[in-house]
């Protein structure tokens, strides 16, 4: 992406000052964006914190209860289970996604008519949306009318129909496979753009020096794609931590509530049991966890880059 690459970074733009006009004029242009962000983001964000300090039923009056929601949350095993499950899902899906995405990116990093086609097809599931992909998977994983179980039975893998969604392990893997299928193309493109930014002569020079393919991958490719990899990692972790659609649509949080994610738990508290205040407190905790995670990832990847 040379045309994009050459752009200066937004805030560090060394534009000559005299060409820019001063005064409040510019603010006028950014006002609509600012207004949207304030009304639909900052105010709700503040309200979340405010609500988390209340007993706030959907119907009826809110009552100030200080930190009681947070002390209750501390002892709420179902919330910590949900967080634990979300973490487990995040780790597994991130490894699966980025691993496959890197392999795919290595396959299609070079130009060519065929590789262009592969790239396009592998990317297709990305644009379908989580709700449609989840509905599609709910059908494919269904024991009676779906594809996986009957197919396994027909080719003799299982004796009789095996209900994939009945046990935690198989249900979890079924959903993870769906997510990998749906999102691998996305991270493939991000990693590929990093691979393509590596100057070709680096590899050539190393080859002439007698470096094997593995050595070249480890010592040239890996260090140079750290930045896009960091981006992919952060997006992947954040996305997985917020998973909801697939577990709601395919599994209803089952079997036996074992796949209720953090967002699902918040949804249940807020919009099924109507404990808005408690839901808000859970949101605040989730938000803090996500911010800490992002900061840690940025730190880790940046520090290593500098040393």
């Amino acid at each position, binding site marked *: 992406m040379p045309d994009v690459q050459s752009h200066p970074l937004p805030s560090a733009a060394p534009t000559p000052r005299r060409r820019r006009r001063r005064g409040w004029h510019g603010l006028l242009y950014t006002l609509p964006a600012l207004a949207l962000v304030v009304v639909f983001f900052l105010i709700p964000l503040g309200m979340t914190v405010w609500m988390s300090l209340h007993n706030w039923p959907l119907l009826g009056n809110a009552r100030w209860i200080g930190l009681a929601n947070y002390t209750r949350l501390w002892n709420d095993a179902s919330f910590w289970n949900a967080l634990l499950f979300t973490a487990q899902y995040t780790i597994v899906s991130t490894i699966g996604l980025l691993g496959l995405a890197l392999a795919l990116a290595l396959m299609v990093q070079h130009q060519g008519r065929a590789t262009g086609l592969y790239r396009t097809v592998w990317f297709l599931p990305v644009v379908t949306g989580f709700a449609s992909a989840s509905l599609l998977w709910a059908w494919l994983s269904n024991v009676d009318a779906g594809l996986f179980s009957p197919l396994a039975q027909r080719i003799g893998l299982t004796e009789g129909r*095996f209900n994939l969604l*009945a046990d935690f392990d198989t249900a979890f893997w079924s959903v993870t496979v769906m997510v990998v299928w749906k999102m691998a193309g996305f991270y493939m493109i991000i990693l590929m753009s990093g691979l393509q930014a590596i100057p070709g002569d680096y590899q050539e020079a190393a080859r002439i020096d007698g470096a094997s393919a593995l050595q070249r991958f480890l010592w040239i490719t890996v260090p140079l794609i750290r930045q896009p990899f960091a981006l992919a990692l952060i997006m992947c972790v954040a996305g997985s931590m917020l998973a909801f659609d697939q577990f709601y649509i395919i599994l209803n949080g089952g079997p*036996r*509530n074992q796949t209720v994610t953090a967002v699902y738990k918040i949804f249940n508290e807020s919009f*099924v049991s109507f404990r808005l205040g408690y839901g808000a407190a859970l949101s605040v905790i989730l938000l803090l966890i996500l911010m800490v995670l992002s900061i840690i990832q940025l730190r880790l990847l940046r520090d290593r880059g500098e040393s």
Partner: protein
Amino acid sequence: MKMIRGAIALTALLALTLPAAGTRAETFSLWVRSGANDYIRELIASFEADSEHRVDLQVVPVDEMVQKYAIASVGGSAPDALSLDLIYTPAFARAGQLRDLTDFAHSLAWFDQLSPAHLSVGTFDGRLYGLPFSADASLLIWNKELFKRAGLDPENAPQSWTEIIADARAVGALGPETYGFYFAGNCGGCNIFTLAPMIWAAGGEILSADGQQAMLDSPQVREAIDFYRTMVMDGLVPAGARTDSGANFFGAFANGNIGIAPLGSFAISILNQQYPDLDYGVAFLPGQEAGQWSSFAGGDNIVISRSTSEEKLPAIKAFIRHTYSLAGQKILARRIGIPVRADLAQQALEGLDPRYALSTEAMQNGRTPYSTVFNDLINSRNGPWTTTLNRAFFADSEAEVEAALAAGQAEMQAIIDAAR
């Protein structure tokens, strides 16, 4: 902000201009849950045929009715009237979302003929907030064709849990694609409707009469679980049952390869209309011993939102009166098999499938649990009743069943206590 204000102004403008059809004729919105609701369309058609009022029908996904109604109430977009699962009347009455219908109800000449189950859950703090709209009783249904092929008497329903297991075994032995029994194993609503009556018939309870005590920890509940679990372990129940959150509650039996399924009166009319080739019988849901039986007295109450404007009340009341007329009750009888007005029942059921009479009897002797947190306890997909049963039905060991029941009992009681 201009845009937002503009949008508000626009919506306000639309709201002002749309219902300008006339002053006397009103259009009111009516929500119903998704599922067997053809009778409502027919009822509305017959109402509109001789009334200047109009009904704007909105179908809400059955699992999301409670959420949607509560959210809409807060958001100011509540429907004018609802055909609400009768079980939720106390919860919404308690939250102050419903209009007091006591005076209107007593003005009806046939008030004392209305379904008592509906009226009992329609009452909160001595006032009446919901009136019977449609009824649904739970029944046992069996496939006569499969009974015949299995060498059983197709005219003889199983009379007890042991007989159900024995008959299911005989049908299950017919082949790998044929199953003795079906139940939706991950559906709280389905199981309170079908399993709970069998527990009641055996003398057990799920909740105390006032809804303040969870009562899962009883021998009857244990034995009922054991009854289902035995059939699961024997392979008499299709694998899909374990993850069925109600989507296939009825569909599995209609497919024709299930011997016995506890369903409801709703199934009779759908089977008659859509699966005319399926030969089936209906019976009461039995208890442990022959001769015991019970039923869940379910269905919908019609309720009016508190926010509904006065101008619309005459239209809604006219619609309710129309429902209680002979014409209305005949539609109910034909479509779902149970009229809700006792004095017209015989007339309305005349000439219809004799199996309907059984539904009406089940309804009259059925029970309806009373709780203001029914959704959180029973119907919620992630609630304790649903998860406890799923865990227990498909448990690998007795110990697992015990653990599930103990956890479920504690969780249910905690929810009840927290709501007090």
